[in-house]
């Protein structure tokens, strides 16, 4: 199966590549087509943002990569490649089991419920290190305290003995990050890691991720709603809509050079912190249901540029002469002035 997109330069093998990934949920109401062909590639040491409206399939994508899709869901097509090797099928599943928690790890959205309430912070840290690094209890505890220190938790020795309910949300998310990096992974998937946190804490956690990436050479798949975060933290962006990728490209290009009408709408809908007077523009309408997805372009009912061609499903094609790809028959530069990048950039640089 050839890669349907040419967005990656030929140089390094991507650490993670999705090819036309499909996931279905066999529910009572019928088959929900959660992912309908998702393709993107993440190069080593880079950060790729996965953005899109609620329900577009971002979390399902992350779960699929982590091997966490559970019944009634199943991967029904496509492939997931780790450094060029499939993680699907029998041999692939064994490979994935070896990677999970060690070479690739994940931080979830809700830090309040992500820790076992009956176990101390230290016990969580010891558990994962004993499992994957074969450390002794004592060595794991010592290293656990260092990890807490590394993610910016003060008084780590005391925190090791505390239980999750004794920590604030921001603290818990730092603990989750410490757990995720405990075995020095190469890939970190962060599914809206800051959504549940206070605004000030959000920035701190994102700073922490940026620091870790720099210090550890992590590759990060960052799922977010927040285009400001994308601009600040990410090199690449993949935009999801109704279970598929509609545009990929460099984060630097996103704000000025988005080609897909949906991406353009998203950018316009992002409030710019510089200019409070500017009105928030949102995209009218709602995405189609995935129980019975349309056969043509899924964005058509909301798209200002629809033509007859849009009754057929547009494939994800490399943008002519550029770095990136989009799935739109009538792609063209945005009809508005290229916007200045949101100012949040500064705080993560």
């Amino acid at each position, binding site marked *: 199966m050839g890669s349907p997109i040419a967005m990656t330069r030929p140089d390094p093998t991507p650490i993670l590549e999705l090819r036309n990934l499909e996931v279905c949920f066999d529910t009572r109401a019928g088959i929900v087509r959660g992912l309908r062909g998702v393709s993107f590639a993440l190069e080593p040491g880079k950060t790729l943002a996965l953005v899109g409206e609620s329900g577009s399939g971002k979390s399902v994508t992350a779960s699929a990569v*982590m091997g966490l899709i559970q019944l009634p869901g199943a991967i029904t097509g496509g492939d997931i490649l780790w450094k060029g090797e499939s993680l699907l099928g029998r041999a692939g599943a064994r490979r994935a089991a070896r990677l999970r*928690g060690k070479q690739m790890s994940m931080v979830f959205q809700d830090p309040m*419920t992500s820790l076992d*309430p009956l176990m101390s912070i230290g016990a969580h840290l010891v558990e994962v290190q004993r*499992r994957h690094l074969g450390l002794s209890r004592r060595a794991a505890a010592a290293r656990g305290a260092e990890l807490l220190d590394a993610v910016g938790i003060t008084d780590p020795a005391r925190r090791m003995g505390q239980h999750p309910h004794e920590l604030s949300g921001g603290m818990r998310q730092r603990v989750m990050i410490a757990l995720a990096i405990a075995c020095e992974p190469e890939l970190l998937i962060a599914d809206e890691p800051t959504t549940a946190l206070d605004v000030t804490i959000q920035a701190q956690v994102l700073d922490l991720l940026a620091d870790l990436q720099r210090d550890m050479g992590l590759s990060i798949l960052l799922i977010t709603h927040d285009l400001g975060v994308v601009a600040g933290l990410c090199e690449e962006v993949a935009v999801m809509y109704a279970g598929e990728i509609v545009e990929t490209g460099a984060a630097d290009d996103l704000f000025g050079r988005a080609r897909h009408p949906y991406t353009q709408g998203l950018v316009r809908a992002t409030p710019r912190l510089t200019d409070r007077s500017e009105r928030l523009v949102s995209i009218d309408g709602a995405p189609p249901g995935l129980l019975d997805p349309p056969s043509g372009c899924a964005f058509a009912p909301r798209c200002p540029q629809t033509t007859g061609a849009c009754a057929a499903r547009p494939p994800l094609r490399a943008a002519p002469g550029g770095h990136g790809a989009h799935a739109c028959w009538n792609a063209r530069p945005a009809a508005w002035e290229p916007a200045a990048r949101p100012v949040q950039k500064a705080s993560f640089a």
Partner: protein
Amino acid sequence: MAQFLIRRALQGMLVILGVTLVVFVATRMVGDPVQMMLPLSASAEQRAAFSQQLGLDQPLGTQFLAFVGDLLRFDFGDSLWQRRPAIEIVLTKLPRTLELIAAGFGFAVILGVPLGALAAMRPDGLWDRIIVSLSLIGLSVPQFWLGLILVMVFAVGLGLFPTSGSGSLSHLVLPALTLGIPSMARIMMLTRSSVIAELNQQYVRTARARGLPFAHILFGHAMRNALVPVLTLAGWEVISAWAGYTVVVETVFAWPGLGMTAMGAINHSDMFLLQAIVFVVALGIVLVSLLLDLLYKLIDPRIDLA
């Protein structure tokens, strides 16, 4: 912690005092022991003398104070029925009942918890269906009837165990099963639903994302969390067996424990013996619930004992 223990001890004493007060009043309404104990031909003087000997001629208040005073020395007076110290009878019967409860309840927990967890691993799977059906049967059968069926099948029919009495391990099997089966069914159902709920928690997903094997997540995380509600039920099972179900079972199997003795005491209007039994039962309930609170604290750090 110490503060908690002291407070609970005081509460416990209040409970016991309240219970004994109720029993004190109730036993004096069950029937007149003087009537029961003396032959019909006894003269009025003889009756008065006997009444005086028991202290029943005193005003109720005085009787109660004397009763509480004796109570503190574990002196419940002599049984009217068996003519020896009531507490002595209780202490000889107590081990029999404890043995029955330990066997029945041990059976219920040792089978109920693992089977419940097994069912939870694959809801609607084959094991789940079998286990749930069996526990529904166990839940819907009245205890005395269960006892009779067990006797008919295993004692009368197959001759595997004695029909009644005590003294050996094989005597214990059927009464313990009769006591334990309904408990086991309840514990199994609750363990099942509780483990299913825990396995759907976010912390289980994150543990899976950390690459921990399923068995480790089940036994190391989900089961422990699931046991918090199961512990509540288990405590209730022990208490209700201790305070009532053993009477049924001991009666069906002529098991010489506290339950049978209580029935005897009631039949003989033996208020002193009955008071001693009720006191010991109340004390047991208080101790079990204290033990439960301590266990909660041991399992769940969020529980604040203060």
